[in-house]
């Protein structure tokens, strides 16, 4: 089991009050014991590092349990001559999987779909007016896919953008939640994802309390969606704080 929790904060859990309210409804029905022994509303410990790639304007490496993602940002660069003049900047996103990322070799997920979702999640957060006529390229590479890939990619990409010095309205944190029978499970592993009945992914800007993207698959009743959104937004806020502390560490370290 990957337990590389070096010098970054350990597990983060949503606030205790929400957990107490939900516990009765979770324990009924089939009791799902998570493969890595986490609580139902407990996210994986996050390892975040900026400056992973030296040749890029900005980059970040994120490890959430078994999901390892590296994102590098290039730009703002001159737009291709073929593109028209635009007085706001352009964002170009690309997500790809390595061939050894999944247990079965070469089983790449629909990466074009992920690229467009990454684009939509980030475009609401970047101040595009600050770099007219240029393009910012975000390239994400999933080194190992251990479940809940897209949220990790989005969070890591926003770290890389801040590392590159691109102006953002706020950092973007993203969390996904699976519905397994009666239980709501946050930050699913790939095993849990293959059994899931439904998935809810939220991308939000914690300080502004704005949701930039939300996708729901599977069948949900309205109270379940309310509950899931509440838990996810809580977790996003905590993740946002961890990302900020990582950025502060990166800045203060060279000064020592």
């Amino acid at each position: 089991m990957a337990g590389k929790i070096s010098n970054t904060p350990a597990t983060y859990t949503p606030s205790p009050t929400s957990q107490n309210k939900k516990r009765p409804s979770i324990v009924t029905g089939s009791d799902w014991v998570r493969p890595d022994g986490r609580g139902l509303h407990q996210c994986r410990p996050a390892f975040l590092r900026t400056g992973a790639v030296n040749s890029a304007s900005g980059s970040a490496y994120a490890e959430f349990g078994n999901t390892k993602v590296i994102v590098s940002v290039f730009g703002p660069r001159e737009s291709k001559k073929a593109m028209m003049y635009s007085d706001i900047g352009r964002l170009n996103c690309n997500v790809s999987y390595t061939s050894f990322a999944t247990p079965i070799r070469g089983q790449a997920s629909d990466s074009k779909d992920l690229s467009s979702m990454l684009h939509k999640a980030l475009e609401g957060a970047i101040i595009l007016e600050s770099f007219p006529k240029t393009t910012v390229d975000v390239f994400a590479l999933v080194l190992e896919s251990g479940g809940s890939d897209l949220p990790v990619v989005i969070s890591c990409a926003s770290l890389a953008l801040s590392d590159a010095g691109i102006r953002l309205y706020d950092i973007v944190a993203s969390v996904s939640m699976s519905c397994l029978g009666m239980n709501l499970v946050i930050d699913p592993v790939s095993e849990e994802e293959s059994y899931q009945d439904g998935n809810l992914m939220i991308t939000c800007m914690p300080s502004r309390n704005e949701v930039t993207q939300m996708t729901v698959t599977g069948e949900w009743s309205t109270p379940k969606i309310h509950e899931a959104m509440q838990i996810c937004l809580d977790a996003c806020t905590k993740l946002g704080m961890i990302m900020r502390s990582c950025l502060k560490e990166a800045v203060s370290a060279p000064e020592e």
Partner: protein
Amino acid sequence: MGATDVIASVKAELGKPNASHPDKGRVSIYVDCSPTAEPTFEGRGGEELSIELSTALQRCLLGGKSGAGAGIDLSSLSIVEGKVCWDIYIDGLVVSSDGNLLDALGAAIKAALSNTAIPKVEVAANASSDEQPEVDVSDEEFLQFDTTGIPVIITLTKVGRHYIVDATAEEESQMSSAVSISVNRQGRICGLTKRGGAGLDPSIILDMISVAKHVSEQLIDKLDSEIAAAEACDEEL
């Protein structure tokens, strides 16, 4: 819907099921944006929009990875477990685009599926477990697809501080963001996709969900009565 015209067609072929889900059939949804709708759709132009629409439709109609919560019952498509199943290809074509493509496609697919008749298949009884079993596709008997579980898609577009349902192209050009919610007959949410760049307050999203549920009830009733009327016409012919 208004000036938006879409065509949906359903084709079924015999195929081998996915190794990870041997008892389920396969459904694949693809949307093509034709240049007759918009000149910018020519060649690669419409590709991005096609992929976005196809993914959104797949999310709404097919549910989670384990197949639960799907609008279409995949296990009814299996013939011989692990060997032969029906492959359903749902193709949508956008002929004229005046906004709100997703809703129109959702309604068209629902209607197309209710009109679909899957031929009955007989499997040869003495096939050994290794070989491909012989299947006899009957031309006479058909199975009607069960479409009561299929959800409809409602898109709520946020313009300024209000949200509108069924936006035309003119209204969509002014939108800050849009949320497409797919609701089924029982009032449960089968899928939700947020499009557009601007951020939304979580309470607004919850409000939109309740509005969508309200509107969807009327839409489902209207659609079902239209489909029933159309089928009655067909039978008379």
